[in-house]
């Protein structure tokens, strides 16, 4: 029965691998942010005493690429519904939560790969992890960010049947989640409301954990980051699996 999870996962990886434009296209936005902000705001950030800005935002941009890829991978549910393949998986004698989990694992793996490519680009333009031992830990955080947001995207897509609505709703969610996450600015210096909002944003914990493991700088604390991401991921998976199980065609 594990083979069902594996097949769902493999299918998504194959689809990703066969779609080179998708692979390249989804790098555009993170690169733009990295270059425009990194080199544009960098000098100001440094003058204000924040240290190297590239060093600061690289984990944020890696998280961003994972966020985007993960959330939008939910569209594959709608895609499969449109092109009929969803029915093939729904009539199979397999518990639906397995189908959902397989999909999420696949989508999250693709998102992680996307994150690794951005990571490599960051290294090319001068990002340096301070502690090599932190790199495996950063992979854990990449995976958690990917799992959480893929599960969320898949759950939302399971509720929708409308291809056009999905990207609109996603943009509406993804942008605030990204901008209010501390990916681009330190949470520490924030005042009142904005700080509260930032701490309500799940991505803040992912970014903080990623940054802590790669550069040693954390505003929230590694353990808290990990626990929050883990619990959120498990809850979203459970709720998402329920929603997915209820799909009728």
């Amino acid at each position, binding site marked *: *029965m594990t*083979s*069902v999870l*594996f*097949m769902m996962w493999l*299918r998504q990886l*194959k*689809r990703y691998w*066969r*779609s080179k434009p998708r692979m390249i296209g989804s790098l555009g936005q993170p690169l733009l942010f990295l270059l425009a902000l990194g080199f544009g705001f960098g000098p100001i950030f440094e003058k204000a005493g924040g240290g190297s800005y590239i060093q600061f935002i690289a984990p944020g941009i890696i998280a961003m690429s994972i966020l985007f890829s993960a959330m939008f991978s939910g569209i594959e549910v709608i895609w*499969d519904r449109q*092109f*009929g*393949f*969803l*029915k*093939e*998986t*729904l*009539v*199979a*004698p*397999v*518990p639906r939560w397995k189908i959902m989990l397989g999909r999420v694992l696949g989508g999250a793996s693709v998102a992680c790969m996307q994150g690794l490519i951005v990571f490599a680009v960051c290294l090319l333009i001068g990002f340096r992890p301070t502690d090599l031992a932190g790199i495996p830990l950063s992979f854990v955080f990449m995976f958690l960010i990917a799992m959480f947001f893929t599960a969320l995207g898949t759950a939302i897509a399971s*509720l*929708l*049947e*409308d291809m056009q609505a999905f990207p609109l709703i996603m943009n509406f969610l993804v942008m605030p989640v990204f901008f209010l996450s501390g990916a681009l600015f330190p949470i520490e210096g924030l005042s009142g409301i904005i700080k509260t909002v930032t701490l309500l944003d799940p991505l803040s914990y992912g970014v903080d954990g990623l940054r802590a493991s790669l550069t040693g700088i954390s505003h929230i604390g590694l353990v808290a980051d990990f626990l929050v991401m883990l619990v959120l991921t498990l809850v979203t998976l459970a709720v998402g699996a329920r929603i997915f199980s209820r799909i*009728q*065609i």
Partner: protein
Amino acid sequence: MNLSPIIEVKDLVRKFNSFVAVDSVSFEVNRGEIFAFLGPNGAGKTTTIKMLTTLLDPTSGIIRVNGFDSSEKDEIRSSFGIVFQDPSLDDELTAYENMEFHGALYGVEKAELVPKIDSLLVLVDLHARRNDLVKTFSGGMKRRLEIARALIHAPQILFLDEPTIGLDPQTRNHMWNYVKNLNQSRGMTVFFTTHYMEEAERVSGRVAVIDRGKIITVGTPQEIRESTSSGSLEEAFLKLTGHSIREEEASAAEGMRMQRRMWGR
């Protein structure tokens, strides 16, 4: 040999808001029979198939498939294979990968799966194209692949929802010969819908005619011809369901479906 009907449907109702797509339908399909479900557009054929195959919950009524109650979804799901009205293949995978995927979903052992896929692909004449992406296939090839795929797990019931739409007569013939052969050699029950009356007349043991969500008649093609004193099943069908074109009913049903789609239910 179990003699009880393999499909039992009693007072089955499915509503979409106020629209009644299936209106207290009852019928039985016997083990090993080829059963045709006929009706004009929007008559409720596909909705019925969806309920029989666990894709849609009935509003009310009783369904038993292969002895299992409609709540025993996994048991029902392993009992049948289905070819849907619209394609349900993954275009981005190859023919072989689609088959392999299906085998994994239905828990077919790997050692058994590979030769099975090969022989089924030979049978539907797609073996030479097994490593090509499905998106390069024509409509007829996709259909053939879907039929082959539905047979991987050796189901006891095969559902075919308008299986021959868009197929040329050669392929259609080929497909029916194969399905009939399986029906005879393995006792596989076949439940299919079609618009081609001559096809229903030629292959099916019994026929049900459904219109506006209600079953009008059930019987062998000969019984139906005789009871309506018609020369052909087509003539009988038109006598039973009328000559008017069902665009309006179809679009009303479609409208309801759209509404459901929009609200996700």
